[in-house]
């Protein structure tokens, strides 16, 4: 199946190493991610924070681009893009007055009626590929790998937008188990990572990072798995600051879910560019016989 893929800014820049293993894995699973032509910004935090329609134009224009390709669904890799696109689509579906205003304003575009369904790649894996199927395709099971899923906020909230139960999500646990790993439950898996405070006030971000990572370490996790590039940034790069502030702080590798998927499917880990992570997971992976020893 050809899958209309909306990358968003991060996946094309700092998170390129989450996109490449995704594209390769999906191909391995028998589907093809086709990048949406002429995509623009998803609206990001502005469309979520502002109570006006102007800020919904960016995500809606993107959805119009999707429907122009003839696709009825679009998949994202980023939790923020997923959230903004899905919320914008919900406005179109549920509020006729707003829908008409937006359509009237976007007079050079075709009218949009909310017919595109927005998926996060995790949902696509669960609902369209199926974890049972993935389990069958695993080449390098993540044996002995204890992974603590971390969802953050945008994958789960608000109700009706999130991809799983807000309080007890299972989707990443189920993926980890399908790949042969062990999911380590953490009470902080749906807590905030500090989000965009990371650009103006890193203090709370360091504290959140420390709290989340300390807990996963205490529960015996080898690594944390995330589904949002911003969560990744805060949990990985801010470990540097946490380490400076707290001598006793123990670091832990962070994975994007597409990276563990690629490894388990037996793909070349070079697309994951683990060397760019602040905490390089390769020594740990090597320990578990999950990467080739030649990377050094």
């Amino acid at each position, binding site marked *: 199946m050809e899958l209309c893929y909306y990358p968003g800014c991060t996946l094309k820049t700092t998170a390129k190493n989450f996109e490449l293993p995704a594209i390769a894995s999906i191909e391995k699973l028998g589907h093809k991610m086709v990048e949406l032509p002429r995509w623009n910004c998803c609206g990001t935090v502005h469309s979520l924070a502002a109570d006006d329609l102007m800020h919904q134009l960016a995500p809606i224009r993107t959805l119009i681009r999707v429907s122009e390709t003839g696709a009825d669904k679009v998949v994202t890799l980023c939790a923020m893009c997923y959230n903004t696109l899905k919320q914008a689509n919900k406005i179109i579906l549920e509020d006729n007055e707003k829908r008409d205003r937006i359509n009237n304003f976007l007079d050079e575009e075709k009218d949009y009626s909310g017919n595109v369904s927005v998926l996060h790649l995790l949902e696509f894996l669960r609902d369209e590929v199926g974890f049972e199927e993935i389990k069958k395709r695993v080449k390098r099971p993540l044996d002995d790998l204890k992974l603590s899923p971390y969802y953050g906020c945008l994958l789960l909230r608000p*109700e009706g937008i999130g991809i799983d*139960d*807000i*309080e*007890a999500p299972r989707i990443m646990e189920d993926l980890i188990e399908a790949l042969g790993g062990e999911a380590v439950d953490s*009470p902080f898996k749906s807590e905030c990572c500090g989000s965009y405070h990371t650009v103006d006030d890193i203090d709370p971000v360091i504290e959140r990072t420390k709290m989340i990572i300390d*807990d996963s370490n*205490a*529960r015996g996790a080898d690594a944390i798995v995330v589904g949002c590039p911003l969560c990744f940034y805060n949990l990985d790069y801010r470990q540097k600051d946490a380490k400076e502030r707290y001598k006793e702080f123990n670091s832990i590798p962070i994975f994007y879910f597409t990276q563990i998927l690629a490894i388990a499917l037996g793909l070349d880990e070079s697309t994951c560019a683990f060397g760019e992570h602040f905490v390089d997971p390769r020594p740990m992976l090597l320990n578990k016989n999950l990467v080739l020893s030649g990377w050094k």
Partner: protein
Amino acid sequence: MKRLGVFVCHCGLNISDTVDVKKVVETINKHPNVAYAVDYTYMCSDPGQEMIKSAIKEKKLDGVIVAACSPTLHEITFRNAIATAGLNPYQFENANIREQCSWVHKDKNTATEKAVEIIKSMIEKLKLNQSLTAINIPITKKALVIGGGISGMQAALDIANSGFEVILVEKTSSIGGRMSQLSETFPTLDCASCILTPKTVEVGHHPKIKLITYSEIEEVEGYLGNFKVKIKRKPAFVDWDKCTGCGLCSEKCPTNVPSEFDRNMGTRKAIYIPFPQAVPKKPVIDSKNCIYFKTGKCRLCEKQCPTDAIDYNQKETFIEENVGVIIVATGFDILSKENIGEYGYGKYKDVIDGLQFERLLSASGPTAGKIKRPSDGKIPEEVVFVQCVGSRDPEHGMPYCSKICCMYTAKHALLYKHAVHEGQAYVFYIDIRSGGKGYEEFVQRAIEDEEIVYLRGKVSKIFKDSGEDGKLIVWGVDTLTGKKIEISADMVVLAMAAVPNIGVKELAKKLKISTDAHGFITEAHPKLRPVETLTAGIFLTGCVQAPKDIPETVAQASGAAARAITILSKPELEMDPLISTVDEEICTGCGVCVEVCSYKARELNEIKKIAEVNEALCIGCGACISACPSNASIHKNFTKEQILRMIEEVT
């Protein structure tokens, strides 16, 4: 020709502001049938009614029209008035010139003309009205009470003590209800069992109360004064007539099952009496867990029983009873912890609900009254109580206040402090609702004397600490200081929302009574008819209507009983005769009317081959009249001829 009197009401300015009442009187006086017409400020007042009565006598009237408000307000007032003056009450018509005229028009001339037209059309109806007498229906002098909790028991006792027979049906094997699970009661801290057992014993021994436990309502037919009820008795697999309640069977039973009565914190046997003070004190076999029922072997209880009471072949039986009134008292349940994700969806053993805490406090509970936490039996040193879990929370579907939690949480925290002196109790609350005699003083006592820490705010999350000590971390907020609160607790007690008991919806369907958005039974009027349902002869009491505490429940039970006794104590029921009837000469017995009747008031007489009306069930809705293909269905005092003449008059 009938001599009619027309009485036009001003209703203060309600009518006279828009309708020229003097002109109405002047015009209507010219009508050939009108012998007398007059206007007055308030016709419904005593002097107004006196005017009507004396006019009937002086002007020798044989029919009265009051042109005033809607008949829903004062039709009965005026019927009674003309009856005392010696006229048949059905020689009266109410012309509605307020709701249907003065209130909806602006132009005085048009409104005045319309008022005259309305009165004229009512004159046409009244001209053909027949004198009717009320229908008398016999009453079965017996009450059915559904539910054997404190509410049902109190209602049953009140009715039985007034000399009427009562059938008390209880779903479980013993009466006692929720109250039997409680330890002590607020605000006096009386032991719940101590004040409950005298009631259960009295119910059990009352000569006028027939107790049918381990049974459910299967079918209900009939109507006010004459209900026919089919009761299903579930098989106990024990012949209760032979059983002496000695308990040997339970002692020897090898199967241990989580006890529902102890909220799954203790165990019971597969053959069991739910609690020591059960009434009747007779065991039942839980066939889902009994080894004999599962494998065909064991029969230990049978061997032990000194009176040969065990009967593995017992089947469900049905009992039929005729009753005059029904009282619904099926009580409440509490929302399951499994519904609350932020507190762990019920996965933490030491996060318990309020009823579980009652069992921990109870001397007959799983810990014999010692407060020990379920996971490891440790005496908890820090306990967090969380109020409004599910309640006052539209997100969880229960926007209402469960009413009892503020008080029982204060009681729980206080009893905890009495048991564990060095322990610390915290209470998270939204606000404290302690309306009731001695209630506020009780809460203050808990806060001030027992040093329980009350924190105003909600708990956002409960989770297990990563350490070995099994501590629960409670995250909350104190909205008075604006600070985030984190408490490392040994146990958490959730005051879960009160919800209707399971099965209430189905029962309501059988009884043809309605439930509200949350599944509680709807009362006939929230203020003025709080113990009645909209179906005549069916009353409600206790938490089946809405959450309430014991004193309120008991008071409501006595209220429902009193309303039931008002019916039972009448020699016969008087019903309005304005219902349908059949012209036997014309009726072909086609049966269309039987099908359209929603009230089961129509049946076919197979011998006469005609349809007949059950006068006690017919409410005079008119469905059969419009359905009848041969015009054999007639509405008394609302015949087709009357309607046509009324229309003719105004067109």
